[in-house]
């Protein structure tokens, strides 16, 4: 079978599987659900995906569902998004960032311990960002000192996605402050139940708590939890950060595209759109199509090793702005009614049912993972060849 045929077959198979396994009424159940309900639903859906072999297409061959090509991985994300399946929010870091870091940089023992555990539901979070560092990730200051066979770690992490529910943490710490800031960083695996770990959820502007702060007070981490070498953690972190290979944007873009109907519905249907709003819908639709096309090109270039410098930044910025403009238009079209703080559906992409929630939530894409401002710097400098600013 050719690659394309294989992908077609996979899509067909997955659609059949979804028809049997995706609860048609999950949205109704999740509409306005509380946190425990959300967590239970996430776990149930994850277990089913693992069982079906659709959770780990990017894992090595010897795992159930593993060994899939990137086009197949994309196909799976697209089909899940198009079927309107719940997003895998709770397990995304486990499946991608944690698993792929261990696959590429971990020890045999680390892999043996965690990969099977992840499939059974071990939840991971990321401890990279710090309050003082912001866009300047490498300036992190959480300190680790080695004492015998342990590291003693103190400091503070922020923006750990769903960190309050995590069992394990991918942690970046500073073990040397004498040289350039990228040097002296070490990559550790931390059990979130360790003594001295305190997690506080961060309440966002949506009112939800999707992120957490992690406070570390002399936390002991066994040396066997070191990934890669001491002071060489920055390189490992790059592996972690590139582990999802753009699949998040593939998923988010598909989910956005599928919600286009909500824009029209927000105005009360096609007949009620005024000239200007109808024109705005045309533009949003055009940008969605353009973004999908751009994403397809990026993924295909990535596969053939031809990705150009800065392409990912262009895509990220284009998506971020679209997510804001899309939700802002939805808000505008719905008018006064959008102001009501009604229930919404967690984990539903852009089909939460509340435009204000979606609009506020879109800031996430404009700020996290390299803010729009950082992306503009990268595009200007690395793509357009404009000089770095003079730093004092």
């Amino acid at each position, binding site marked *: 079978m050719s690659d394309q045929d294989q992908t077609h077959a996979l899509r067909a198979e997955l659609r059949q599987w979804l028809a049997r396994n995706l609860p048609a009424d999950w949205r109704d159940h999740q509409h306005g659900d509380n946190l425990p309900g959300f967590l239970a639903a996430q776990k149930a859906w994850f277990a089913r995906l693992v069982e079906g072999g659709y959770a780990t297409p990017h894992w090595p061959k010897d795992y159930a569902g593993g060994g899939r090509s990137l086009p197949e991985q994309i196909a799976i994300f697209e089909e899940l998004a198009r079927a309107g399946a719940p997003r895998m929010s709770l397990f995304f870091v486990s499946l991608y960032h944690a698993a792929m870091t261990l696959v590429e940089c971990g020890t045999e023992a680390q892999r043996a311990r965690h990969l099977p555990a992840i499939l059974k539901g071990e939840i991971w979070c990321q401890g990279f960002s710090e309050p003082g560092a912001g866009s300047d990730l490498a300036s992190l200051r959480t300190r680790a000192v080695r004492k015998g066979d342990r590291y003693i770690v103190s400091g503070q992490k922020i923006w750990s996605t769903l960190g309050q529910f995590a069992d394990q943490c991918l942690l970046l710490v500073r073990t040397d402050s004498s040289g350039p800031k990228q040097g002296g960083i070490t990559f550790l695996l931390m059990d979130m139940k360790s003594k001295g770990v305190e997690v506080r959820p961060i309440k966002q502007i949506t009112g939800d708590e999707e992120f957490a702060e992690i406070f570390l007070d002399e936390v002991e981490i066994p040396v066997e939890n070191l990934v890669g070498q001491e002071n060489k953690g920055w390189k490992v972190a790059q592996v972690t950060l590139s582990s999802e290979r753009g699949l998040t944007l593939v998923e988010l873009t598909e989910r956005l595209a599928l919600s286009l109907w909500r824009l029209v519905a927000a105005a009360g249907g096609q007949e009620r759109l005024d000239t200007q709003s109808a024109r705005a819908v045309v533009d949003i639709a055009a940008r969605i199509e353009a973004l999908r096309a751009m994403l397809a090109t990026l993924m295909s270039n990535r596969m053939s090793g031809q990705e150009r410098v800065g392409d990912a930044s262009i895509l990220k910025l284009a998506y971020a702005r679209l997510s804001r403009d899309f939700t802002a238009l939805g808000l505008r079209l719905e008018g006064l009614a959008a*102001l009501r703080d009604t229930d919404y559906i967690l984990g539903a992409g852009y089909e939460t049912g509340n435009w204000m929630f979606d609009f506020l939530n879109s800031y996430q894409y404009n700020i996290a993972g390299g803010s729009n401002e950082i992306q503009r710097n990268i595009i200007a400098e690395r793509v357009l060849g404009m000089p770095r600013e003079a730093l004092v």
Partner: protein
Amino acid sequence: MTVLDSETRIDPEEIRETAQRFLANKVERRAAWEGKDAGCAALEAEMAELGWYLLIVPEAQGGLGQSFEALAPIYEEMGRALAPSWLAGTMAAIDVLATGGHAEALSDLVGQGWRIATIVLPAGQTPDHAQVRIVGGADRATHLLLIAADGSAARLIPADAVGVSLVPVETWDRGRAYAALSVEGEQGSLAVDGSLALAVAQAHGDLALAWDSIGAASQCLSETIDYMLGRQQFGRPIASFQALKHRAADHKVALELARALARHASSAFARRSEGWAVLAAQSRILAVEAFRAIGEDAVQMHGGVGFTWEYNCHLFLKRALVNEVMDGTPDQIRDRIAAQVAAQAMG
């Protein structure tokens, strides 16, 4: 309302200073966001003591006989403080009653401390049969001034009259209270000239919202700049990054344009001089859109912490989003006045 001579005119800048000091002491702007009472009742009691409700009541009815220009700084400062009160509802009603010569109702209003929600109804509704999804300040209203959108009728009715229902509505702007209104059946209360009520209430409301937005936007911009001055990235305060500076400068220009127009429109409205209705509507458009842009960018300029409940920029953003669409979106306002503006242009 006529132009006041300088003897009876209270200096608006004095009013501003008083208001600023008073509101800085009294308004706890995060209270409702932390699940506490916003303190609207206590605030309004003190506002009454300060004589604010008397400001534009004619002297004959025991008021201070000031023009709208005395109110503008109060609206602006309330916006700056993110105050929980919808003062404009009562004030617009006073303005309508005073303009229409309803001396008796005004005396009652002053004497009995009425609080009024002034509502221009959705098109097609009448003061006797109305359904309004979101009304500001209606939770504390003793009376409702309901005005048909075409100016065909207006009525002042007690909020506790039979057939009137006010149900609290939770909105994303927790800093102010909102309710859904429904009125069914003939109400026995005061009829007011509808077209007069419509024109005055609309302009008063437009200007009040414009000043509220200007005050809030100005505070939001200033707090955002303070944050950027303190926040270091790559070894320097982010306030020194030129791209952010230029965005802030553009916001400042938009804000000052809105302020200049609001000042001009307020003066025209106070004097009922030519074009006041269109000017008031245009002020509101410039002001709410400047506020929305500033609120939106404030969150972005704060970066990660801007996305948290803990920082204050989202309070401004949510207020901005409400101000923008309350009683009509900017586009609806544009459509309302477009023909007049075009006709004016063509002479």
